[in-house]
């Protein structure tokens, strides 16, 4: 029995014996001295990496651990760090660092000439090369255009009229986030409100309004807008005309002699608009005043739009001043 076991062992272990190296073989990689200390360091690093990886498995499995993300990242990160360190030690201490030379490549003039000749000779049966090339290019361009045509279906690239459209028109009631109608008497001074058109999609630039109240004497609206601010209540588009962010800042002076005038401000690039002067730009990069919406107070004291905005809503494009918004 023992003989069979020994025979089996020899057979199995013998397979892993290295082939003997012939002395006459010249070395490719120069010989280097062994460094057992460095090897020990690498072994230690691998061991640490293994421990950390095991720890990360443990952290992952243990549900009750607090700060699990931190421990997971720490364990996994350290595991990689130890392996990285091991590789670096191997690179610097355990393999031979040779300094070899090679030639930088150059060009190959003969091959280039041969290629030129090949192309020229390949085409020398043609009598009207240029014409054929133009024809081929023409066909290719036409096919390319034909293949590109469906790209136009991605969006209304030729018809940008919807950029003028807003959900506001005469008679539309103003509602708040919860859908409650705005009563003129509920609108107070020294604060600001966000309003939406009743029964309309709110997730569009033409929808949200910012509403503020002033004393009528404080208003200096542009010509033709005298009736736009019933009882001193003004409404503007909430979307900045510079780059489309929502205007969610309102500053109001508590003590006018030392504080700046009331203004609506955009938090993205700080375009500042004067709410008493029809949305005129006071500061910041916006190139157009804030579009104002004319308001009216109906018989029941509810705030309604009295028309569409004074200008197109949102960021400018080539046609933004061509005409006003449409309902």
């Amino acid at each position, binding site marked *: 029995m023992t003989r069979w076991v020994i025979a089996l062992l020899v057979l199995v272990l013998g397979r892993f014996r290295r082939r003997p190296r012939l002395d006459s073989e010249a070395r490719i990689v120069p010989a280097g001295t062994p460094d057992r200390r460095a090897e020990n360091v690498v072994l230690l690093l691998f061991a640490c990496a293994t421990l950390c990886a095991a720890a990360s498995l443990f952290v992952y499995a243990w549900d009750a651990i607090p700060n699990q993300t931190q421990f997971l990242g720490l364990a996994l990160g350290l595991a990689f760090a130890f392996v990285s360190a091991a590789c670096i030690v191997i690179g610097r201490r355990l393999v031979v660092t040779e300094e070899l030379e090679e030639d930088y490549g150059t060009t190959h003039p003969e091959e280039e000439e041969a290629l030129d000749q090949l192309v020229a000779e390949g085409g020398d049966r043609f009598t009207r090369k240029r014409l054929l090339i133009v024809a081929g290019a023409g066909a290719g361009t036409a096919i390319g255009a034909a293949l590109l045509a469906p790209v136009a279906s991605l969006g209304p690239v030729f018809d940008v009229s919807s950029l003028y459209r807003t959900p506001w028109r005469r008679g539309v009631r103003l509602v708040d986030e919860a859908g409650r109608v705005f009563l003129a008497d509920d609108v107070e001074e020294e*604060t*600001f409100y966000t309003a939406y058109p009743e029964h309309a999609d709110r997730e569009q630039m033409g929808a949200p309004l910012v509403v503020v109240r002033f004393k009528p004497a404080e208003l200096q609206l542009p010509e033709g807008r005298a009736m736009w601010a019933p009882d001193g209540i003004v409404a503007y588009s909430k979307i900045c005309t510079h780059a489309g962010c929502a205007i969610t*800042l309102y*500053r*109001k002076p508590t003590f006018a002699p*030392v504080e700046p005038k009331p203004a609506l401000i955009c938090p993205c690039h700080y375009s500042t608009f004067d709410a008493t002067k029809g949305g005129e730009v006071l*500061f910041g990069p916006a190139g157009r005043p804030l579009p104002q919406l004319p308001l009216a107070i109906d018989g029941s004291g509810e705030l309604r739009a009295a028309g569409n905005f004074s200008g197109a809503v949102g960021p400018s494009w080539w046609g933004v001043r061509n005409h006003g918004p449409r309902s």
Partner: protein
Amino acid sequence: MRAALVLVVLGLACVPVAAADPPSPGVTHVKVPAGTPAVAWGAQLFGANCVTCHGPNGEGILAPVRGVGDQTGLGPSLVGVGARAADFYLRTGYMPLDDPYSQPHRSRVLFSQGELAALVAYVASLGPGPGVPSPHPERGNLADGQESFTEHCAGCHQIVAEGGYVTNAVAPPLNKASPVEIAEAVRTGPYLMPRFSEKQITDAELDSVIRYVIYTKHPDDRGGWALGHLGPVPEGLVTWFIGIVLLVATCMVIGRRFHA
């Protein structure tokens, strides 16, 4: 070379130091005999600390007046502002304000509790006005508060109340604000802040907002070091000064320079 580096570092260090809170002007404490009613004590304190800007009877000084010791007297009327506003401005240290043209900001309160109560009582007595609110954030709903805060406050104060910029002013971070101070600020609208009344934000909604603001002092930061909840700016700094520094250091360890 090293001297230059030291100078540069020192120079950079001076910037935040220079921009830190200027020393408070100091307040004048007034001792009164025991048993003096709060309003009377408050009147004396007011006379010693506030009249330069707010006038002898709190009626305000509406055009600048050169006062004692280079102080410019200029300030709004306090008649009718009530205990609510007085309590807010005094407890946060917004008042007293050294320079009427600068923005009031949170600073060390130099009055004692008794003095504060006296001053508040006096200002409240100047005319009928709102009292100190008593909010109940524990009754509020956190999600409603988040939504309301986003709608009314985040534009200036930032979505997790870390503060921000409004043209010509700072909207301060709210991490030091107490529930009462938040309620007072919302209702009063200090400095450039809008004033939100009960019609616009009901008391129940305000409780939710306050509950959310308290939450933002210790939000869910399970991702690790929160970097002040300021978003991409500190994230970019970390990318370069931690990530890239570590990786370039690794490159320098790995890469050798062959000596000719």
